[in-house]
């Protein structure tokens, strides 16, 4: 083939397409060159290859110095050695240098056993600290969602690249120079003083323990063990397709039954499901879509279109910081988790006769921004939050292990009723395009009064950054758009600001791939196949559900009948809708 490049790596002939890196070329023939700063979630825009750490260096014949394989492109006739003595010595020395400016407190590090530096140290057979010297004394910070310990930072710049290139949030960047260089918000401010959206993608890609989630497991254990508290669990859709990875299951294994069983085993008094909240979200948001659409079709020029989804708390933070002039566009519907909390602490608590202050609602989320969302004042009643706090999938896994529960031995169990019943539409919330698809299933049927001929909307699925589709709503072409990553969201919002965004409904998720690659999920360590497997599992979960449309969830129907009345009723508005704030710093 014309565009194929032939080269030799470790005496083996390799043929790869032009534009391939030496690292990928080697991987194609089973040569696994160690790398550290490099990450490439192929098919998404998450990529970092600054050639900064110099761990992946290789010898290239005819070249004076060693070449970083992650950023060196193959050339015809290239002769590469990945394991010569020169390379091995250089690579080990570089790793030893990184260690020489690292706290090396692995035993108590939150990243222990998941740390990419730790893996390299084992792999390079480093048995002593060869180079001792001054260590960096950098910032430490605990925000509501993210914990920073920059002493553990190895300046791989992955966080900087996702924060700037992928999310365009622009909070993280290198400041100062040389040995004093560090990654921080502008002027070395704290995260909490910056425009950070808490999307946590920096945490998702951090190879070491420099950026981790804030841990709430001790607080949860205390609450569970407190006889005066009724503790309620609500795990998000994306958790059940990823949690298994922490217990040795193949990525994409659905562990919904074991998830419910483990939560019960942990001591939660009621094991409900955020999926219930997702169905409720579709009822409210769907009604809002129809409301705006009807106004628009009725000639109302003031109606704000496109309506944008508002489930993703990082996305909410993003537009509050950056688009205060466009706060009327996003749906006023709360996120599924917050809707769940509001219903649990009103409808259900009243039903059960549990006083609000005794009830602790804990969400288990693939997300770190949820930790921030829980703390929002508008989601509290007299200071008591609708959702008390949120733990990540990783925190749950740690807690299960700590509580002597053999996850693999657990028998599948069901969620409790009534807040544990959900449809397949709710299940797919966890993947990019899922909220849109779920909404379309309901909007179509409510608007047209007909049953959907085909329930799946393939055109809004998949990892493409921005997806578009036109849906035939009984002759009305409904134009929808699905974006994931905040960078893609910014692209759309900038167009909206210029009046150039020609859609009726837009879904935005901050994380690449949606919640399945949320910052609270088990670490993917740069393997995009894991994310794809989770997405496939989400859609399998949907297919396996007897009910696949939110408006057909019997417990949702009952909730409206008994308590809320109609979607967008006064009570629904009070409990299930919110408003947004101008948080711009300019």
């Amino acid at each position, binding site marked *: 083939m014309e565009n194929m490049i032939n080269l030799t790596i470790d005496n083996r002939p390799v043929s790869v397409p032009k534009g391939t890196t030496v690292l990928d070329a080697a991987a194609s023939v089973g040569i696994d060159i160690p790398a550290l700063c490099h990450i490439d979630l192929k098919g998404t825009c998450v990529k970092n290859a*600054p*050639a*900064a*750490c*110099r*761990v992946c*260096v290789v010898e290239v014949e005819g070249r004076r*110095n*060693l070449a*970083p394989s992650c*950023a*060196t*492109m193959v050339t015809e006739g290239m002769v590469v050695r990945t394991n010569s003595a*020169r390379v091995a*010595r*250089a690579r080990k*020395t*570089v790793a030893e*240098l*990184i260690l*020489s*400016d690292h706290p090396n407190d692995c035993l108590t590090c939150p990243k222990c056993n998941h740390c990419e530096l730790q893996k390299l140290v084992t792999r390079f057979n480093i048995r002593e600290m*060869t*180079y001792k*010297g*001054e260590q960096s004394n950098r910032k430490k910070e605990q925000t509501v969602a993210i914990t920073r310990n920059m002493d553990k930072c*190895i*300046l791989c*710049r992955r966080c900087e690249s996702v924060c700037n290139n992928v999310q365009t949030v622009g909070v993280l*960047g*290198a400041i*100062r*120079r*040389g*040995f*004093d*260089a560090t990654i921080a918000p502008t002027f070395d401010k704290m995260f909490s003083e910056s425009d950070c959206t808490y999307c946590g993608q920096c945490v998702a890609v951090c190879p070491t323990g420099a950026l981790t989630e804030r841990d709430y497991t001790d607080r949860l254990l205390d609450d569970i063990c407190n006889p005066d508290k009724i503790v309620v669990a609500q795990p998000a859709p994306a958790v059940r397709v990823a949690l298994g990875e922490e217990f040795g299951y193949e990525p994409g294994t659905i562990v919904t039954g074991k998830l419910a069983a483990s939560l019960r085993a942990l001591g939660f008094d009621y094991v409900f499901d955020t999926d219930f909240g997702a169905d409720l979200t579709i009822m409210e948001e769907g009604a809002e879509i129809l409301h705006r659409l009807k106004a628009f079709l009725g000639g109302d020029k003031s109606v704000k279109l496109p309506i944008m989804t508002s489930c993703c708390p990082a996305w909410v933070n993003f537009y509050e910081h950056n688009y205060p002039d466009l706060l009327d566009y996003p749906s006023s519907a709360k996120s599924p988790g917050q809707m769940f909390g509001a219903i649990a602490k009103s409808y259900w608590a009243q039903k059960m006769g549990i006083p609000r202050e005794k009830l602790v609602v804990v969400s288990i989320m693939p997300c770190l921004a949820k930790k921030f969302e829980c703390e929002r004042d508008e989601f509290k009643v007299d200071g008591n939050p609708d959702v008390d706090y949120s733990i990540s999938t990783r925190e749950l896994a740690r807690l299960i292990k700590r509580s002597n529960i053999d996850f693999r031995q657990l028998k599948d169990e069901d969620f409790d009723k009534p807040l544990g019943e959900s449809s397949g539409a709710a299940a797919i919330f966890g993947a990019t395009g899922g909220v849109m698809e779920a909404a379309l299933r309901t909007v179509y049927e409510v608007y047209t009064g007909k049953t959907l001929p085909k329930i799946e909307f393939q055109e809004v699925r998949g990892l493409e950054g921005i997806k578009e589709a036109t849906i035939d709503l009984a002759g009305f072409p409904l134009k929808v758009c699905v974006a994931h990553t905040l960078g893609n969201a910014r692209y759309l919002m900038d167009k909206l600001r210029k009046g150039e965004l020609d859609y009726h409904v837009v879904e935005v998720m901050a994380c690449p791939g949606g919640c399945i690659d949320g910052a609270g999920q088990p670490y993917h360590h740069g393997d995009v196949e894991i994310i794809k497997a989770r997405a496939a599992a989400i859609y399998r979960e949907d297919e396996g559900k007897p009910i696949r449309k939110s408006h057909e969830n019997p417990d949702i129907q009952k909730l409206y009948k008994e308590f809320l009345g109609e979607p967008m009723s006064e009570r629904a508005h009070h409990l299930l809708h919110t408003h947004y704030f101008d948080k711009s710093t300019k």
Partner: protein
Amino acid sequence: MKITSADALEGIRRQAVNALSVREESNLQTADVSCGLEKGTPHMQILCCGGTGCKASESAKIVENFRSSLKEHGIADKVDVIVPGCFGFCEKGPIVKIVPDNTFYTSVHPEDVEEIVTSHIIGGVKVNRLLYKDPGSGEHISDSKHMNFYRKQMRIALRNCGFIDPENILEYIARDGYKALADSLARPSLDVLADIKASGLRGRGGAGFPTGLKWEIARKFDAPDKYVVCNADEGDPGAFMDRSIMEGDPNSVIEAMMICGYCINANHGLIYIRAEYPLAVHRLQVAIAQAREYGLLGKNILGTDFNFDIEIRYGAGAFVCGEETALIHSMEGKRGEPTLKPPFPAEAGYFGKPTNVNNVETLANVPVILTKGPQWFASIGTEKSKGTKVFALAGKINNVGLIEVPMGTTLREIIYDIGGGVKNGKKFKAVQTGGPSGGCLTEKHLDTPIDYENLAAAGSMMGSGGMIVMDEDDCMVSVAKFFLEFTVDESCGKCTPCRIGNRRMLEILTRITEGRGTMEDLDKLENLAKVIKDTALCGLGQTSPNPVLSTLANFRDEYEEHVRDHVCRAHKCKSLLTYSIDPVLCKGCSACARGCPAEAIVGEVRKPFVINPEKCIRCGMCISRCKFGAINVI
């Protein structure tokens, strides 16, 4: 007034050349000629160096004094005061040159002005005490070409420095300025490019990449917007040739950038200069404004369809921003740190557009290559290194300053003939070439003809042309440490080897100079140096171990002495010194004890005093207090 054709330019040149002719002729005069208004000389010129070095020694005040004195004497209309750029002989600055008798006054002070005016300008009698005194013969030398400092020099890049008024474009035009541009625009650009290639000119900024080839590559990438960037981010400690060229001959840089633009089909020029060069910035601003005024920058230059304009971009003075990718990022408003090449700037440079980056000295050579022909240039120098190189002589050398010599000149000629040898008759020990990225060369390298290849083979590099001479009093471990301190300070922090590795090397060197080093440290040092050289991302990191490697190679015994014997033979490493009082020489006057800030010296008056080594901070105060030479330092 716009110059709209090559002919118009030639017309201007002819007019301008008359004004300069008196200065041109003056250059030929020797000591026996002495002019003065009372001797019948109708018109005189006073050239007072306006380079940054001389300005720091009050040359601006000297200029002011000349102007007011001439006015007081009523002769301001007969005598011009001109402020050219650097003459190069900074050791003897401020320099004042008198035209037309070619008198070269050195170390002039503002208070000398009146005497020069009354005695020389008016009376025609030279002020002997201000003439350069040859250290060998002890005789006064009146003209620069008879000074050893200038005798072996060949000024191509510096051709106009110290001669023309850099703030007057007409003086540049008079010296064939913009002729190369006019000639080039009349030829196919490929022919011009071929001339640059044929000249053998190589980059003067460090790596010595062939300039013509660089232009040829940049030409190949087609885009509507392409950029010519002048790298004026001179950062080597002690190097100031680029600054001097911009201060003394800014138009040569502008002309060369335009020629480059013509050759590579670029219409935008950017000069990246550190803001800490205010004078150079000012001179460039003046030159750009004048070039625009004359239509030499802008649209339809010299009546052709070639358009070109130049903007200045300021750097904050980071050494790493001399690396072209870091420089471009800095210009884009990003963090000044390098990225991996390829892609080279020629393909994707300033905001992703094809960009050609050349250093100031490289560019300064371009116009003269084209006016005198590539063969002329190629005839100078060695086989692979053509033309001349400007060096900044510094350190323990008699004639500190800026010199330009043909490639192939030996270190010995530079240090002994031009530089006047080592200061205070001390023994030569080493010379660091190439700044912090270079290496230390020793006695055995003195007869090596200097060019890119030979310096690299000797374990150093050309770099931008810094040359720091060291004598027997210099400790080579400390020298390596000094340069490493610089690179540690200037590392951007992007890649591990440079960020952490250099820091660790510096820590080891510090340990060694403080007597805490081990023989194992030497092995670690060597391993780190080699790995950093092999793995660092950019030129800064890759070359940063050079001072360590070259001193280890040439002075390993000194390192070992520090480690094994705790001895610094140059007495530079304070921690390794032991102060003691010779009981025979000591008169017991107590001056040392009274002066000791650490109260480390005790004794009874009129009896020998003693130093308590535990308390001694090795400040040397006792040495300066003792009148009897009784303090020993080992």
